[in-house]
């Protein structure tokens, strides 16, 4: 190699130009946020709902610790109103819990394991309630949630260091550029605007409809517990070792839909889904709250948004019911009670 000076001036100039652009950009974005000229940019991950919820939770934990998190698919997203849950819990136990519903549309149990780990690492909750349903363990729905766990920011928060994740975490200008990209993605924008309309500040997704149309073709024609989703379940259960109280919650479907939910048979729902899951988690000694049998008497037809989702009215009743169940579970679990009173956690 024979390099004669002057050499590299253009490259050096390009690097200087980039440094100037990036620093100026970072400064302008931060100043603009401080001056309320524009909002703090979202993460710009593959999922607008997660972006909104992470931003909201980041803000919340700056004000107060988050005690409990709910995690599941859209079924739990619309089923738990954390405000109602906390009020009822306080009435029963006298204890105030600050809760957030971090459920995400399309989430299945496999990715839920990763997201649960991320939430525990990042927000240190005392309790994590994982809401599950048969579709969360079906291979048919697995691919929908994959972009969530492949996302650089998610991987970065799960200690898989990568430049994209690091930049998303630390550079507001990078996030801002990412917003330009997602601004041109109509799917992302449609989900974002829907979420901004329907999400409550505590992460509760508010559905107000009431259409109970039952398609008599089986929703999951061939059901088998997917290995990847079972691993996700194991990952959530293992978080118990981090000192987090884990509760598994069966998220119900409309009773009239149950015969068509799993392989066109109500019995299959219990034998192919719920019983094997119960067997799987027995070893972890994690409470599993069943809800399907009681849902018929608890929720009226008018409280369903559709056969799989509750509307806000149904969510209110269900949240009260869940609060009672969890208070009961925690009352009987003396070890948990001790942990609770010792204010376990990093906050």
């Amino acid at each position, binding site marked *: 190699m*024979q390099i004669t000076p002057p050499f590299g*001036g253009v490259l*050096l100039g*390009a690097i200087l*130009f980039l440094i100037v*652009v990036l620093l100026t950009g970072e400064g302008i974005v931060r100043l603009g946020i401080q001056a309320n000229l524009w909002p703090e940019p979202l993460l710009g991950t593959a999922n607008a709902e997660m972006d909104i919820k992470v931003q909201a939770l980041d803000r919340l934990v700056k004000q107060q610790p988050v005690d409990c998190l709910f995690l599941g698919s859209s079924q739990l997203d619309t089923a738990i109103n954390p405000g109602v849950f906390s009020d009822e819990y306080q009435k029963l136990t006298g204890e105030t819990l600050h809760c957030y519903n971090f459920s995400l549309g399309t989430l299945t149990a496999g990715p839920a394991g990763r997201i649960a780990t991320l939430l525990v690492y990042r927000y240190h909750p005392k309790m994590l309630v994982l809401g599950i349903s048969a579709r969360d363990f079906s291979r048919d729905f697995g691919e929908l949630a994959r972009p969530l766990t492949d996302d650089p920011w998610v991987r970065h928060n799960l200690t898989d260091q990568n430049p*994209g994740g690091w930049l998303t975490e630390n550079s507001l200008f990078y996030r801002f*550029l990412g917003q330009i990209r997602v601004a*041109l*993605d109509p799917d992302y924008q449609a989900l974002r605007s829907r979420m901004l309309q329907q999400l409550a500040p505590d992460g509760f997704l508010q559905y107000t409809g009431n259409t109970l149309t039952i398609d008599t073709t089986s929703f999951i024609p061939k059901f088998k517990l997917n290995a990847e989703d079972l691993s996700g379940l194991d990952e959530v259960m293992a978080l118990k070792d981090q000192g987090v109280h884990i509760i598994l919650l069966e998220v119900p479907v409309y009773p009239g839909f149950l015969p068509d939910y799993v392989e066109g048979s109500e019995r299959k729902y219990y034998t192919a889904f719920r019983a094997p899951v119960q067997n799987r988690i027995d070893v972890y000694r994690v409470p599993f709250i069943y809800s399907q049998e009681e849902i018929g008497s608890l929720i009226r037809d008018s409280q369903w948004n559709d056969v799989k989702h509750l509307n806000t009215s149904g969510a209110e009743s269900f949240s009260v019911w869940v609060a009672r169940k969890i208070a009961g579970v925690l009352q009987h679990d003396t070890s948990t009670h001790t942990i609770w009173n010792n204010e376990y956690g990093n906050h």
Partner: protein
Amino acid sequence: MTPQPIRFGIMNMEIISLPFVYFLAAALGVYHLLPRRGQNIWLLLCSLYFAASWRWEFAVILGSSILINYLIARRIAAGILHKKAWLWAGIGLNTAGLLFFRFAATGYIDLILRVLSGGTSLSTKILLPIGFSFYTLQAIAYLVEVYQKQISPEHDLVDFGLFLAYFPHLISGPIERGKNLLPQIKQNRLVGNNELAEGGWLILTGLFRKLVIAGTLVTLLPEGIFARPMEFAASDRWIAILIYGIWLYNDFAGYTGLVRGISLLFGIRLSPNFKQPFFAHNMLDFWNRWHMSLSFWLRDYIFFPIQRFLIRRGFSAGKPARIILPPLVTMLVSGIWHNATLALLAWGALHSLYQMADHLISQKPGFISPKKQPRWKQILFSLRVYCLLLPTWMLFAAGSLKLAAGFCLSLFTGGGTTRFRLLELVFPMAALMVSFFLDAFQEKHGEERTVFSFPRPVQSVVVGLGILCVVLSILWSNIPSAAFVYQGF
């Protein structure tokens, strides 16, 4: 039994991937510490390792090809009586190998075996070795050049091995000629300011074309649109076919720029492969600008020999055989080279028809060359070329005659709701414009020195923005590596 590909490779070392960056850094670091002879040995070892990184058998096949062609070339040069026989033996062996792997990869060999053996299938699927169709053509050209005494046969096995296996151009060319590459391999190579600057620029533009432009345009080519067009809206089908050629061009030109740039860091100048093909005024002009190293190979070793053969047999310029046979055979061979399918044969036949038409038009009395016509007419000529290319892209993209016909018919059938909304077209439209402007600048200033005619601060800004776009594309695409379309050939 279902054919299962065997996997023995260390990893598929895509050129755009972190493992390749480490490999390249190691190759360059050691290379510049060695004398020329050592450099060549080192580069050959690197090249064989690169082939083996895909599958070790690929390195064995490459090594065998080097050895066989080396020995045959020496026999051609040495032999007085049998040199023609050795040439044909060499051409035959290379062609047979190419046809075998081409047909095997398409499944025909397996089919024949099944028919002959009454149902027994190959237990493993035979894959086309990486770069095989490129270095085989290069070997044939070398044998012919030696036979015609355009070059002396290479006595040094290492140098000849490097000529065939040189890793920057191994997977998809450019298909080099002995008279261009061998002298560079034989001489002391200088890597100075110019080589580094031009190499760096070629690498940047290559990455930009592949990751930024092609990476953006590919969003308009949803998976399955050519195979199952009726699942998509009519407008989506039209967008897909209109965009396909420009996407393919940026993908392949991006690859070529990248490997030419990498090669310059070793002081070796590879041939260009593209010369703004969409500025072509007719189809003959298009083939002088698109995949040039293949086009020129086909011209020199298929087209011209057939033409000479016909002339020797007394076919004058206006005779139908002179007009039909050379382009037809040439483009059919090109089709088979791309893939042994009826669709690619039809693709070749259609291209040959275009060439015949251009040839006839150019022979008409009063014909004025497009280059001598007003600018607006030249633009219209280029648009006409693009329109003529559309049916050929259908054949190329669909992969089968039936699917291509189905796609073609679907263009004139309505239905479906568009997948793309106006917002989604903003980035691809911007990418199209950037592709066009990059072509325009490259046409004016040359591919290697596009940016160097600007004042220095402008150069820095252009390079800086280019780096920013490439880095953002890599970060946003969130994939560990990117493969090129033509490495499948």
